[in-house]
Each structure stands twice: as structure tokens, then as C-alpha cells.
């Protein structure tokens, strides 16, 4: 293995004792940070209860204990299963997840229009409980990933299986009749019995693995073969195939599921990973060009996409804040406008949890949860949350840079980037930076699919980070050129 060779070549042979300072797993740091994260979440929960009813929430002890137990179980699992993993990922993810639960609790308590007896649409009286249960399931998925995947490279074996699975998951809602696939106007669901699953969230993981496996195999041919035109290395036509397939798939999602957000995520993921693999700017240009052309065509062809653009450009004026059923061509920007009003209302320091009116904005518990935080925690709190996301992305990228094996490197880079892109698409969408497209806010939005997939992704990233930071095997004895390597 390269790892061994590198190690022995780096002077370890000369002084084994000096080479042996064991790199620290920093699990105690993780524990301390987790205590801090749980403290922040509990304080937020108490503050929301005080703000709403003037007294501590009834379930403070139960919910608090449940949340603390959950994250400490995750911590113990990490100690056992991935002792070298990054110490910040778990606390950051737990903090985001906990804050999301607090906001959902706060919205459920306030009810629609601030009337506690009147439950917000798509919520019910046990939504908070469900969210806690989903968080438990998410952490279970996180642990399961650490248990099942001992070594990230084993995933490379399932490259095409996972690729096919990802495409199928993506395509299912498009194929299913509306009655089984549409929730709140978005055709991105599978509805079975009382449950609804967003397969796209899981497809994201499967396709990231597929892209990593495929690109590791094909990176040389993609990078080197081809002609150079105007200073740009163009790939060969036959190598373009997979790119075109990815592009076509994301366009199909766009057309059949009218979901620009998810389609942008997949295409962005693919372009980013092909760029990491080949380091060829041409792929970046081709990818961005194809996506821009596709989106432009879609905005012309689909009134749905065009309306999103109008609402984005004129949230308060040209697009009407209110549209009645009679106004056929009226573009409603009610949701966007209310979200922006909420943020403006919160201002710099926010109203404080429980003191604002985030329930005025439709879907404040899912797509618009960021504006709810902006309203109640203010610019200050929102910046903190964005920085938590940013830090999580950074830790993912750090793992990607640290890991040696190219497959793991690609996978970690792709996952970290798609997390950043998803945050950019949804936060940028609800704050009016870019046209609004419905993707979930990772770890925060109401709903199980997103939480499960996000936690599984953290599991993968921590497994890769564990591989990256794990100290190289130590030689047992120093016998010149011959080494016995400790078998693992």
C-alpha cells in the first residue's frame, strides 16, 4: 500500500519512537462540543416556551432528555466505530437538527395565524414528536452507515448498482400517478399508506457514490483524450455520453416533476465531481452552459418555471403579493414576500423565539424555516446558522482533502459540495437571492426523508474522515527493509 511506503520513507525507520506520537482522535473535544450543542438547543427550547406562553415548555425534560440521549448514543457509536473521525461534524449536525426541532415545536404551538387551536397546514399536533422520532431514525441511519461501511472504498464495488438505484429513485415520482406522488403541489414524493417519502433525498447519496465510482475509473480518459480548441481541452464525443445522460436526467426531473431545485442539485453535484476528477475547466464550462441553456428553455416553455422567475424579480410589486383564484395570470409571491417581511421584521437582533409571527409565512416549518429563524433570531442568529452550515461543509471538504484514496476523496468532495449547494439553493431562494425552488433545508426542515438522508451523509463523511485521519499502520519491529504490518 502507498500508505505504508510513504510512512516508512518519511524517516520513521530512523526513529520509531519519535514517529509514534499517536494522532489524537479528539473524541473528548466532540463530547464537549456536543454538550454545548445540546445546551444551546435546550436553551432555545426553553426560550421558545417562555416566549410563547410565559412558562417553560411542558415537555422540556422529556424532549430534552430524549435529544441528549440520542446525540450521546451517536457519540458513543463514533467512539467505537470511527474513533479518528472529525470531531466537529456530529456536534454541528446535532445543533442544526435540534434548532430545527425547536422551530417546529414553536410553530406547532403557535398554530396557524398565531391561534394555538388552529394547526398549521401540513402540520398536526404531534409534528414535533414525529420530528424527534425522525431524528432518532436519522441517527440510527448514521450509526448504521458507520457499522455497515467499515471502509469507504467498498462502496466502489456497487458503483453501477447504486447508479441505477439512484436513477430509479429519481424517476419513480415522475412515473407514479399524481395521487401517489404529489404533496403540496410538488411531484417529488412516493406516498404509501400514511407515509410519504422523498426518494430524491436518497437518490442524491446513491448518485454521489455512482459518480465517484464512475469518475475514478474514467478520469484519465476524460481528462486527457480529446482536442484543444481555443485553449480549452474538449473531451471526445463518446466520452460526453455520461455527462449528457446526467444532463438529460436532470432535465427530465425538471420537466416531469417541475422541480428545478433537485435538478440543479444533481447537475451541480455531477459537474463539481467531474471537475474534481479531471481538473479540466472545460467540463465546468460545458456543464454550466448545458444547465443554463436547459433552465432558460424551461423558463420559456414551462409557465411554472417562468412564474418562479417573475416572483423572484418582483416579489413585492409586479408579482402580486395576493392572487385570487379569479386572477388566472397573476403570479403569486405571497410566500416569498411574507418570508422577506418576516426577516425584515426580525431585523438585526430578531424578535426572540416565540415573539415573532413566523407562522404567517406558509411552509415556515419546511422550505421557509430559514426565514422563521431570521425573524426570531434576527440577522445575528441567521448568520450563526449559516456559519454552522458553512463549517459543516468545510469539515467535509477537509476530509476530502485529507483522504488519500481517490474514490473517497471524490465522494467526500461531492457530498460536501452538494450540501453547500443545497443550502445555497434553499436559503438563497427564500431570501430572494436566486429564484425560489423547493429543496429541503438539511437537518432543519420538517420531514423524515431529508433528515434520514442528511444523517446518512454525515455518516459517510465521518467514515471518510475517519479513514483520512486514522494513523498509518505502525511497524511492529524495525528490521531493516522487511516490515511486518499489523493486520487489521
Amino acid at each position, binding site marked *: 500500500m502507498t500508505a505504508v511506503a510513504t510512512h516508512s520513507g518519511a524517516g520513521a525507520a530512523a526513529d520509531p519512537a519519535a514517529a509514534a506520537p499517536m494522532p489524537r482522535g479528539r473524541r473528548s473535544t466532540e463530547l464537549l462540543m456536543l454538550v454545548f450543542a445540546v445546551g444551546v438547543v435546550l436553551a432555545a427550547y426553553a426560550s421558545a416556551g417562555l416566549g410563547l406562553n410565559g412558562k417553560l415548555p411542558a415537555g422540556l425534560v422529556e424532549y430534552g432528555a430524549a435529544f441528549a440521549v440520542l446525540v450521546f448514543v451517536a457519540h458513543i457509536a463514533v467512539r467505537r466505530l470511527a474513533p479518528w473521525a472529525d470531531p466537529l461534524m456530529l456536534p454541528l449536525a446535532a445543533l442544526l437538527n435540534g434548532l430545527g426541532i425547536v422551530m417546529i415545536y414553536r410553530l406547532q404551538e403557535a398554530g396557524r395565524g398565531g391561534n394555538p387551536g388552529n394547526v398549521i397546514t401540513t402540520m398536526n399536533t404531534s409534528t414535533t414528536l414525529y420530528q424527534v422520532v425522525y431524528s432518532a431514525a436519522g441517527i440510527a441511519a448514521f450509526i448504521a452507515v458507520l457499522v455497515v461501511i467499515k471502509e469507504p472504498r467498498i462502496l466502489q464495488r456497487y458503483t453501477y448498482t447504486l447508479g441505477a438505484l439512484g436513477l430509479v429513485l429519481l424517476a419513480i415520482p415522475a412515473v407514479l400517478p399524481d395521487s401517489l406522488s404529489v404533496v403540496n403541489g410538488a411531484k417529488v414524493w412516493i406516498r404509501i399508506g400514511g407515509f410519504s417519502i422523498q426518494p430524491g433525498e436518497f437518490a442524491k447519496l446513491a448518485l454521489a457514490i455512482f459518480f465517484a465510482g464512475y469518475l475514478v475509473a474514467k478520469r484519465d480518459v476524460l481528462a486527457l483524450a480529446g482536442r484543444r480548441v481555443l485553449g480549452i481541452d474538449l473531451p471526445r464525443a463518446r466520452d460526453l455520453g455520461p455527462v449528457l445522460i446526467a444532463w438529460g436526467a436532470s432535465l427530465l426531473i425538471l420537466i416531469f416533476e417541475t422541480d428545478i431545485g433537485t435538478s440543479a442539485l444533481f447537475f451541480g453535484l455531477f459537474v*463539481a465531481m467531474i471537475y*474534481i476528477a479531471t481538473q479540466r475547466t472545460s467540463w465546468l464550462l460545458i456543464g454550466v452552459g448545458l444547465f443554463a441553456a436547459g433552465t432558460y428553455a424551461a423558463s420559456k416553455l414551462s409557465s411554472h418555471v417562468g412564474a418562479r422567475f417573475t416572483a423572484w424579480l418582483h416579489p413585492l410589486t409586479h408579482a402580486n403579493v395576493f392572487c385570487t383564484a379569479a386572477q388566472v395570470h397573476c403570479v403569486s409571491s405571497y410566500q416569498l414576500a411574507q418570508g422577506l*417581511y418576516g426577516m*425584515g421584521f426580525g431585523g438585526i*437582533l430578531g424578535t426572540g423565539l416565540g415573539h415573532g409571527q413566523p407562522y404567517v409565512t406558509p411552509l415556515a416549518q419546511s422550505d421557509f424555516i430559514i426565514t422563521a429563524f431570521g425573524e426570531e433570531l434576527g440577522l445575528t442568529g441567521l448568520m450563526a446558522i*449559516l456559519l454552522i452550515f458553512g463549517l459543516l461543509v468545510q469539515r467535509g471538504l477537509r476530509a476530502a482533502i485529507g483522504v488519500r484514496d481517490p474514490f473517497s476523496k471524490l465522494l467526500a468532495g461531492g457530498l460536501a*459540495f452538494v450540501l*453547500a449547494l443545497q443550502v*445555497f439553493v434553499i*436559503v438563497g431562494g427564500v431570501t430572494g437571492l436566486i429564484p425560489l425552488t423547493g429543496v429541503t433545508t438539511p437537518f432543519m426542515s420538517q420531514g423524515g426523508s431529508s433528515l434520514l438522508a442528511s444523517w446518512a451523509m454525515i455518516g459517510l463523511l465521518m467514515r471518510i474522515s475517519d479513514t483520512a485521519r486514522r494513523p498509518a499502520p505502525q511497524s511492529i519491529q524495525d528490521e531493516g527493509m522487511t516490515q511486518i504490518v499489523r493486520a487489521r
Partner: protein
Amino acid sequence: MNRAMLRLSLACLVMFALLLINVTYVQAFKATSLASGPGNVRIFDEQFQYKRGSIVVGATAGGTTGGTTIAESRLGKGGSTYHRYYPFGPVYAPVTGYDSIYGPSVGGTAGIEEAENKELAGTDPRLAVHNLIDLVTGKPRLGATVYLTISPKAQQAAYNALKAQGRPAAAVAIDPKTGAILAMASFPTFNPNRYATLSGRRLNKIDLAYRKDSQQPLLNRATQATFPPGSSFKVVTGSAAFGTGKVASPQSTVPAPTNLQLPGTTHVLINDDNEACGDGHPQLIYAFTISCNTAFGDLGMKLGGSVLRAYANKFGFNNPNLTVPLPVTASVFPRVSNPDFTAFSAIGQFDDEVTPLQEAMLSATIANDGTLMTPYLVQQVQAPDLSVVQSARPSVLSRAVSSQVASEMKTMMISVTQNPAGTAYATANQGIAGVEIAGKTGTAQNGVNNTNLDDAVFTCFAPASNPAIAVGVIVKGGGFGAAAAAPIAVQIIRAYLGIS
């Protein structure tokens, strides 16, 4: 691959930087303009969680001490939400309008609550610094206090007088020297306290009941309703006659036949009850004093429609942009060219329309030596930290006539109340009023074929020697202006001048 990874990290950094810049822009810099965005229910609701500013009348002139609060926010029973309270109920309703959970009243019911909403709610950009300080120090946000020019004595007298006579009516009083509005009353009116409920269902019911009321209590007749001015328009026609030199002085004689045949038609213009006007060639002051239609109809035809319209505009007619800051419906003097219609327009009939505010402005112009001051209601706006953010500065709306013409018109208007033959002698002479009033009555026919009861109109100012108050009163279906409208004006003047 690490180099590409570093570039990708840079892309992630850019994405997060863009998000942070954008949220900073929205929450720190755009927050104020978002606060007044269309359909922003948070700001409306918020008024019930924060103390909205008070509306105060009768503070010392130019200052902000003393005074009577006519609208304030009070803590409700639970101690968490504020509700609006109007201590005088309907008396000031046309001035204040109302504030409800759906926001302040708008349209024909719009009052200071709507016109000064940003100041009262504390969202006005000029209050932004105070808000920021309050935000940092954790104090609850407060609205600014709005001080009005209204005189509580005049307003109460106007409301009492209107209520006592019982017909739909309105009265406006102005300080002619500044344009400050001293009273603005309308009857029937509504009780703004009823809109203070926090229950949407109850509010809808109350609002619907008011809206369905055929008496139109929500309409602010003082500024929003127009009526034919009748003979009170002769103030304008007389001013035009002097201003153009068509008539040299009040003592000049003018033709005033019992029947004025209108050229090109079979119509005949007559005087009230078909009476003669003196010997048919009276002095203009006599024709004005007993309000001969034929004299002024003839004058109007000689002046022509466009000259009359120009003078009417100088007195404030046909101005759709006037706000005090409540919106004011434009008073109308139409474009007329036919001599017959011109004759009718010259005596305030045909399509002439005035608001009670315009009636007060007619007298205010004459009282202020021919200069019409812009009417205004807001004396001062004071931030919660007691600093003044806005202070009224009287401004000239129009220099309508020369002081010479104004003095001649004043002589004629004094004659209306002081000459025993004058139309308003019986109800507004010095013995009754306790002060020398100068005025002009109007009795306007209206309805199809003039079948409705006449509207009673009176415009006047007092004291005639040194005018302090100009009043316009219109009583719908009141009959003679002198009988129905003048006593109301007299009561307002007596209350304002403190004549017991």
C-alpha cells in the same frame, strides 16, 4: 485532485458569502422599506404588541405641552396586547379614522391613523435611529406622538351642534392666517372604539353593520362628500367681478331683473320665491346681502365660464391633489361655455360641487386678505424620545385675490349678517353671535328636478375685524342655509372664541 478541491472550496466560500451578504442586505438595510410593503400583516399585528403613538389635540400653539389625547394605545386585560382607545368616541372619528387588527381605516374613512400610520407605528425612516437604540437597549418599540391643530373646544361644539340638528351634515373650521384646521366634524359618524376589538369575526360584523347603514356613518363628509354650494358660491363670483373690474365697488349698481331670461333657451333664472331684487338695479352689496340670483347669474354670463373657473381654482376648486394630510375630494367647478349653464354655475348650481372644507376655505381666503393658506391637521410629530421629527410650516396654497378685492368682499359678507335685510341677520347677527361675523348663506337645490330638500350651506369668518376662525357648514336637506347651517357655525365660533 486536491487543487480542484481547493477551488471547489473557494466556490463554497463564495456561495456562503453571497448568502451572508444577502441576508445582511435584507435584514439590516431593507428592513425599513419591507415594513411598509404590500400585504405585510406583521406590521399591522405588531401594533397590538407594541405601544402605538398617541394622537393629541389642543396642545399649546407650536409646542407639544398640555393638550387632550384623542387616541392612545392601552394595555389590555392580559397585559400583553395593546388595543386602541378613543376617549371621545365619535367626536373625533372623522379626524382620527380608526385603527383595527387589519390596519387603519382607508378610503372615505381614512383619518390620521392612516395618514400618519408610519409615524404612529414607529416605522417611519425618520424614527429608525430611535428604533435601533431601543432595539439595542431592549426597550419595547414606541410610536411617535402626533399633535393636531384641532381645537378641542371648537371640535366638541361642532359635533354637539351637528348631532343636535340630526341631519347628515359636516362642519370644518380653519385658522385663516395659517390654514390650521381647528375643527372637522361629520354627522352621522361612527365610534372608532368599536373597531378596537382583537377578534376578527367581531370586527367583520361591526364593520359590515356600519357599511350597510344607509346613513353612511363611515363617510367623512367634511372632506370626502361634496354638495352643491348654492349661493355661497357668490363669494367667488363677487370676487371675480371685482378682480376683473367688471364691477367697480360694492356700491356699483348691477342689473337684477325679477326674471332673467337665459339666452338660447326657454329657461328663466328667478330669485328665491320669485321675488324682485330691489328696484331691478340694486347695488351689488344689496344683491349679495339678500342673495339675488338674477344679479349674479347675469354677472356670471358677463364674466364667462372660463374666468369663473379660473377664480374658482384660485379658491381651491378642481384640486385633486390636496391632502391635509387626509385625502380631500376635489371640489368641482365645471368647464362651462353655454351662457345658461354659466349663469347657473355662477350661483352655485348646475354641476358645482363643494366639500365643507372648501366652504371654509372660501371664507378663509377673504379673511386672510385674499391669500388662501394650505389647510393642515398635523401640528407636530414627536418621537418617543421627545425630539421633534416633523413640524408644520404654514404655506400659501394660492393668492386668490388682491387685498383690495378681499376687503370689498368682506364688506359685503359683513352686510349679510349685520344688515337687517341680510339672509343671515336673523341667525348670525352680532347680538346673537356675540361677535361680528362675516358670512354668506347658500340654499342649494338638488336631486332630480330639484325634488329633494334643499341643502343648507353657510360659510363665514369671525371676528370680522381681525379674523381668527373661518367656518364652512353644510347640512344635507337642511333647507335654508341661514336657518340650518348658520347656527352651527355660530356655535363653533362662540366656543372657539370663548364667548359664553
